[in-house]
């Protein structure tokens, strides 16, 4: 194989990092300092967060089975655009929500970290499905390839269990994320349903 092609093949500069994080076994904790804004204006932050929560741009990041349920959520019956999160973008630069929908394996892990690092802050991650949470049915004794939980690689905000979760489950995950961002369950302009 030509040397030039080899260097193209090796686009994932995060391979070592990914394996180190995976083998450490614990949850990946980002540096607290890099998360904090330099100047903090509470009121402005709150208003911005309200806007962010109601216009999440998820990335089309389908890895396996869960991707199909994620697609279903975008389609007519479940229609996640009701909650302002229907603009799926393939480019990480334009997204602020990564829905890890499926199994991450050791070959994919460096690419996952690359994509996460490429997203502009503030950014959030939903681990959708048992595979992304803990390896699911692939966390077996003979496991040689599957990363047991995506939170070993990147920080995760919301976990949505299921194999795969129903679209309603993912919808609930998105509402939970909105709650985490704004502090209230029904951010403006959604109101509590009538009793």
């Amino acid at each position: 194989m030509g040397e030039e092609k080899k260097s193209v093949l090796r686009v994932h500069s995060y391979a070592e990092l990914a394996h180190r994080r995976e083998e450490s076994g614990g949850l990946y904790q980002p540096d607290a300092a890099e998360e904090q804004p330099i100047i903090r204006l509470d009121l402005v932050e709150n208003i911005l967060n309200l806007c962010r929560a109601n216009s999440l741009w998820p990335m089309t990041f389908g890895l396996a089975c869960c991707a199909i349920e994620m697609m279903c959520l975008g389609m007519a019956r479940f229609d996640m655009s009701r909650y302002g999160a229907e603009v799926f973008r393939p480019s990480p630069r334009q997204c602020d929500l990564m829905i890890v929908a499926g199994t991450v394996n050791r070959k994919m892990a460096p690419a996952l970290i690359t994509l996460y690092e490429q997203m502009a802050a503030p950014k959030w991650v939903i681990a959708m499905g048992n595979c992304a949470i803990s390896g699911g049915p692939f966390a077996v004794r003979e496991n040689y390839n599957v990363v047991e939980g995506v939170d070993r690689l990147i920080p995760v905000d919301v976990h949505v269990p299921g194999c795969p979760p129903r679209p309603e489950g993912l919808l609930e995950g998105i509402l939970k994320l909105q709650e985490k961002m704004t502090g209230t369950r029904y951010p403006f302009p959604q109101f509590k349903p009538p009793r």
Partner: protein
Amino acid sequence: MTLGTKNQDRHSFYLNMGPQHPSTHGVLRVLLEMEGEYILEPEPVIGYGHRMQEKIGESLTWNAFMPNTARIDYLSALMYNHGYVGLIERMTGIEAPRRAEYIRVITSELNRIASHLLWLGAFLLDLGAFTPIMYTFDDREQILDILEDVTGSRLTYCYYRVGGVSRDVDGTFVEGTRAFIRRLRSRFPMYDDLVTNNIIFIKRVKDIAQFTPDMAMRYGATGPILRSTGIGYDIRRNEPYSVYPEFDFDIPVGTTGDCMDVYLVRVREMEQSLRIIEQALDSLPEGPCMTKVPRRLKLPQGDASFSVEAARGELSYYLVSDGSDVPYRLKIRPPSFSNLSLLPELCRNMLLSDLVMALGALDLVIPEIDR
């Protein structure tokens, strides 16, 4: 194949497509050597969805592996169920009751339609047509409703058992399925108006990515890709399993093997599947849906093979047993693996935008290829 030898006298460059790309349908990566807009050499890089299915198949008892079969190809999960229970039944000599076989055929064909509907939407989405996927998903949800009622899950079914099916169907299922057949039949003219006769669509897919029978034989391609070249090879007909010989259905074939033919073959296959379901519902026999199977069933020593026609082509399970209830070796032969391996030959000297068409026509499910 002349991989990795960069053409010195042409001005070429490398382009990396994937593993996260909307039109690769998952985590496929294609490394392209390009000259301008033209592809000199595409090389698929796979393994981003490798989930050790064969290794797990060798470490669990055959019974415990059942749920995993649905996760190999989640779009045609019931066909993967069918192949696996068929294999075990063939080895141990257990026969499922006729009612169970009929239920298997009905649900498998429903699953095939669901898979083809998703393909139809996604293929057109790759083209840039966003509207059709909304319609196809609408139809697909109807199937998922029917299947959810009997199997208990929306996507990764584990419904078939060795010796039958886990749950009997009732009148609601039969009525619901009949209503769905009527509904989908009335939708086909709409799809024709919307897509098949659309001039933009025809210009994008006509004469693009032509498969040939010789190429199919060299690569072992099966499924709609193969049938689009004019070879009517379908495991349901050529190597019949279950109760498929009892039904009257056609094998749609194409003539030229281009993307348009692949599209037409798949759409007509949905119509044929509806015919099979209708006949099966009409003659659904009464009786039990499960036979008695010993709890700890040992597989006889030896090796056996079982093939079914999955939505994307021939699915073969090959099991080597040492006489215990854990398979000694389980080889899963997914159809897309061989179908994708002909991509370099198919897409040489093609426009980049046409590569997306070719990938779409192959109907890839990456975890199925990587297993």
